């Protein structure tokens, strides 16, 4: 970010000549000066209440487009008061810039009001993975990502929050139906399979705890993560890959933006917010699925079923599963975006990148989940 509010490179001098006010501008006038300069000049005119205003530009060494625009805006506001306005001793360069400005176009209303359709990114294809080079690239990208996150933790106002909310909706809200459906079915299946065995021993009530433990500790987080990897890691890769093909990423860099802060961090934040919530939601639906079997097939009441479920879930494992979900979220955003940035050539590579994003993210999620299982066992 550039702070333009510090010391201006110009000077504004006022001189009263009877009924005329002369404003003498000197030095460099650029974008960052525009608003303040306009206010200062308007104030000077309001205070002096002159019949005519003259702006002398002979001392201006440089004026950018925003500076020239400021003069035009000043002219408009002064003319509106019925005060006459003239620019004098205008350097040739400024005169030429003014010649390029379509003044009437500055105030004409747009052909279309704000808000309209948005384009959607697409792409499908086959996968190819080169392991060792690939690993190095993934790690290098992870390093950049961590650096970007650290930077934005220090400067939270630079985070593009509107993008974060956009992806919260994309990843979360739009993932609700499929996550709910799959979870309910998994709950049903586990309850049904285990009830066949447990009924023989008259231990039907344990179906509830078996379902609850399996869902909350393992299946909830991992199923949700795999589903989101399928939906969102691929979408991230496709989006960024397409931007690479269209030179949009290069354009960002040349405009002075860090593409990782700009494109990746909002997706990362959104996924980390959403995945734990989706996991809780999946847990709930999984238990609901088990309860359907318990109530319909095993003559348990809903109350006993839920009580038994609740007894078997420890707060520790619930928290651990949410931490797991947050880690999986990082993997999804990291791999999805990294695959997108790997696109070098044309559109056809975008398809490969999306597939590879899903495969790699899923693989990493399962590996990390196993690591969690081992570690949590010893805690």
């Amino acid at each position, binding site marked *: 970010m550039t702070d*333009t509010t510090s010391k201006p490179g110009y000077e504004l001098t006022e001189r009263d000549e009877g009924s005329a006010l002369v404003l003498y501008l000197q030095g460099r006038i650029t*974008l*960052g000066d525009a*608003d303040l300069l306009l206010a200062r000049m308007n104030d000077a005119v309001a205070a002096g209440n002159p019949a005519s205003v003259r702006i002398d530009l002979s001392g201006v060494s440089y004026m950018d487009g925003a500076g020239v*625009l400021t003069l035009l805006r000043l002219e408009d506001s002064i003319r509106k008061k019925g005060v006459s306005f003239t620019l004098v001793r205008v350097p040739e360069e400024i005169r030429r810039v003014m010649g390029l400005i379509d003044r009437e*176009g*500055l105030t004409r209303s747009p052909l279309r*009001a704000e808000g309209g359709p948005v384009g959607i990114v697409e792409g499908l294809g086959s996968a190819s993975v080169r392991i060792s080079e690939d690993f190095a690239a993934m790690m290098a990208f992870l390093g950049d990502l961590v650096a970007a996150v650290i930077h934005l933790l220090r400067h939270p106002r630079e985070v593009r929050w509107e993008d974060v909310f956009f992806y919260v909706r994309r990843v979360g809200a739009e993932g609700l139906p499929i996550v709910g459906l799959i979870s309910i079915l998994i709950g049903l299946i586990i309850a049904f399979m285990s009830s066949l065995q447990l009924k023989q021993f008259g231990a039907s009530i344990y179906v509830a705890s078996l379902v609850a433990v399996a869902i909350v500790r393992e299946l909830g987080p991992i199923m949700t993560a795999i589903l989101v990897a399928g939906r969102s890691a691929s979408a991230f890769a496709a989006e960024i890959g397409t931007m690479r093909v269209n030179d949009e990423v*290069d354009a960002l860099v040349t405009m002075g933006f860090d593409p990782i802060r700009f494109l990746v961090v909002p997706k990362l934040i959104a996924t980390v917010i959403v995945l734990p919530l989706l996991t809780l939601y999946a847990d709930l639906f999984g238990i609901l699925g088990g309860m359907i079997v318990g109530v319909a097939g095993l003559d348990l009441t809903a109350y006993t079923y839920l009580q038994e479920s609740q007894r078997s879930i420890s707060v520790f494992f619930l928290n651990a599963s949410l931490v797991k979900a947050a880690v999986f979220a990082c993997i999804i955003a990291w791999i999805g975006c990294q695959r997108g940035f790997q696109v070098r050539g044309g559109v056809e590579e975008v398809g490969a990148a999306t597939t590879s994003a899903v495969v790699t993210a899923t693989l990493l999620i399962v590996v990390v989940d196993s690591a969690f299982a081992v570690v949590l066992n010893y805690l």
Partner: protein
Amino acid sequence: MKGNRDTAQGPDDPVIVVESLTAGFGETTILENVNLKVLRGEILCIVGGSGCGKSTLLKQMIGLIRPDNGRVLVGGDDIAAVDDERLNRIRRGIGVLFQSDALFGSMTLGENVALPLSGFKGISAETVQLIVRMKLGMVNLVGYENHYPAELSGGMRKRGGLARAMVLDPQILFFDEPSAGLDPINSAELETLIRGINAGLGTTMVIVSHQVDLVLRVAHRILMLDRGAKGIVAAGSPEELRNTATDPRVRNFLFRGEAAVGGR
């Protein structure tokens, strides 16, 4: 000269110097020992057949890729050696119109053009809006700020990309294949804009293109790259090259169908 210039340098100082630049991808060398200067205020066209390394050279000049060997000096700074802050300042003085217009599809044209302004604090929304309209006006796109790029024609998108490249009043504008994919009418309109902006704002321009007709019409100076030579095979104004170039590669590429030197 006391002028509307950003620095106290004279008019003949080069704004970009490329010194014995060597560049390539992996094992293959694309450019070998290339030397060139971009002069203040000129329209420099870099031409050559497809795949001869024009885009690669352009990306080197804006610091998107680093040279394998040699240096690129922008305003006296080695673009591969400066710190991030300086690099960002250099980049703010550079505008680039990419081959595909590189407008962001998820933003309106107005938001695209306003994007570079978002890097500055303390600029009111009204000022941003007026600057956007001013730049859109300069490229004949008044009124289109709420359209999405997908709703604009190819020529309009190109001009939109130009408006975005110009929004911070760069000293140097780069164009990669500006007329690629444009019909002759849109191409001619873009040419007029290029010339008008160069004359009106004094912006230095570097245009990379294989379209000879465009280049011969807008260039103050032409550099021709050749794939086999991996570097520059001809340099000069269109007139100089037309009258003096004897190299068959140059004549065939630039003046195909015209009589050879001395043969008229």
